């Protein structure tokens, strides 16, 4: 039995189709992330699970039971809101205790649980302060404690790290992941930041314009994007239009005007007809720059951008601009002729038709 099951839900706001036949099954103890650009429907899906919106069609099951008719206060979920939603007129203690009070627990037990919860998020001394006296990171933790203390079946998180500065964000990502693992708590996490999703998730679901693009583990999604959108969203730079030729073993063979015949792993479901348009992708970090003639294709190094840990090089091959990521010092200068080399297994061939892969 899944902790949360979303079955084919659809939601319209006026004329806008926010969620378009979305399905999802979340196993216990997993960190599941809904990833996508703004407006893709990830937050709406989360809110439908939490009971803050109703789906026009489809159903939601929480803990195996149908939850469609249950208002938020009767669902076994808890949400950490994007703006934390801490009650300003209550102390931190009272905030954390709120859910426990609603469940009519004895005062003594409430006090103890509050202390434990604040300890868990590493804020043992702020109990008597007001939210306005805390920093952004601290408020975030209080919101977390408040939701965790009632031990929900599933914790829903709506871009909780969005308002934090970069350093705090990175720190909190690690802490959140550790906390999740330690508690074995099921998380459904919404973000638009793909790095964040890759770092923290057990399972990722990429969404675009209300539809599910791909569901899988971080490495599956990153290394084998099933659609152009996913590849693009995850930062794959070299998405090259090509024509499908056929299959060679378990590799797809494509033909590209300037690069000739290429091979890569086919990621989408249905095999297209020969001659169809597909997208060939090779990731910048998997390409090696060498002396002219030593690789698969030759080109000219036209630009180089230093980015600290990596350097992004652009090599022009015919009309194509290929992006390569390298580390360390470079032996080639801008304007030099160079060659590019890569492994077939590091390449991906994506069918133009967006595939719906199952969860």
């Amino acid at each position, binding site marked *: 039995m899944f902790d949360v099951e979303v079955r084919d839900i659809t939601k319209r706001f006026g004329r806008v189709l926010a969620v378009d036949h979305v399905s999802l099954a979340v196993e216990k103890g997993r960190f599941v992330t809904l990833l996508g650009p703004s407006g893709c429907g990830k937050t709406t899906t989360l809110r439908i699970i939490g009971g803050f919106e109703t789906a026009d069609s489809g159903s939601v099951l929480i803990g195996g039971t149908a939850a469609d008719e249950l208002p938020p206060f009767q669902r076994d979920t808890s949400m950490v809101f994007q703006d934390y*939603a801490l009650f300003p007129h209550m102390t931190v203690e009272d905030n954390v205790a709120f*859910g426990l009070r609603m469940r009519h627990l004895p005062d003594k037990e409430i006090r103890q649980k509050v202390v434990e919860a604040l300890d868990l998020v590493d804020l043992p001394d702020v109990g008597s302060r007001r939210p*306005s006296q805390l920093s*952004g990171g601290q408020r975030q933790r209080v919101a977390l404690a408040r939701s965790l203390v009632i031990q929900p079946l599933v914790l829903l998180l709506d871009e909780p790290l969005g308002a934090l500065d970069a350093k705090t964000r990175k720190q909190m990502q690690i802490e959140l992941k550790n906390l999740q693992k330690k508690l074995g708590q099921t998380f459904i996490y919404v973000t638009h930041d793909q790095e964040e999703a890759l770092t923290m998730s057990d399972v990722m679901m990429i969404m675009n314009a209300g539809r599910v693009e791909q569901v899988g583990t971080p490495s599956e999604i990153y290394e084998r994007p099933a659609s152009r959108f996913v590849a693009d969203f995850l930062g794959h730079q070299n998405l090259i239009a090509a024509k499908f030729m056929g299959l060679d073993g378990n590799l797809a063979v494509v033909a590209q005007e300037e690069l000739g015949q290429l091979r890569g792993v086919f990621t989408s479901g249905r095999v297209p007809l020969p001659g169809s348009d597909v997208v060939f992708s090779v990731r910048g970090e998997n390409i090696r720059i060498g002396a002219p003639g030593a690789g698969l294709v030759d080109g000219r190094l036209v630009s180089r951008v230093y980015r600290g840990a990596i350097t992004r090089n652009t090599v022009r091959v015919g009309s194509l601009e290929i992006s390569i990521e390298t580390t360390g010092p470079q032996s080639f200068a801008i304007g030099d002729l160079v060659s590019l080399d890569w492994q077939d297994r590091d390449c991906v061939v994506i069918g133009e038709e967006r595939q719906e892969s199952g969860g």
Partner: protein
Amino acid sequence: MSHPRGVRLLLTAYVYLMLLFLFLPIIVTIVFSFNLDRFSSLPWRGFTLTWYERLFSNTDMLDSLKNSLVVGLAVGAASVVLGFSGAYGLRNWNARRKNLFMLAMISPLAVPWMLLGLGILVFLNNIGLQRSLLAVSIGHTVFAAPLAMMIIDARLATLPRSLEEAAWDLGANRIRAVWDVVVPQALPGVAAAFLLTFTLSFDEFIIAWFLSGFDVTLPVRIWGMMRSGVNPTLNAIGAIVFVISISLTALSQVILRRKEVPAK
């Protein structure tokens, strides 16, 4: 657009002149409430507290003051309850529908109160209610409740929806969430609305005149005194009334303008 210095000085002086004009009756009343002379005029004859003393021994006056206070409190309480309920109910409405409703509710403030007074008098009589302080309270609430609703609505607009959702999420049903989260946040608006509606009711004359029975409110008593000739205690009671109104109005502004540190 900038203006030449002369124009600026002239107009600014005009503003202060107008302010003087607006405050003149208030100042005159307060000043002459201490004047020895029976006739409120210059030259100044001397300082005295006689008129205030006479006021406090005038039982009719004190009774009507008490009546006005009771009515004011009742009107304030009723308006705030009706106003909060209305403002909360409007939260989910789109702007157009909300504005239409507000306009309808607020129309009593734009209608001559003589019409309200007469209408309620006739209507209440027909259903068997006599002129009384209760009738006055009912009449005042007609224009006070929408005002309270407007003020509280403005305050509720600053309340993020996520606060209520968080309360629901944690297990509170709607009533609980309203009581534990919405009301405390709306409190400055509620307090300001109470003060302003109290003041309006306390000072209101026309509706009170139509609907007062044997027990009259203070303004109606003052009206009676005014008909019977010069009475310097009028200045004293006038001064007291002015001070009360201005203090409460100022207090409500302070409450409303106090910036809350946002929770985010």
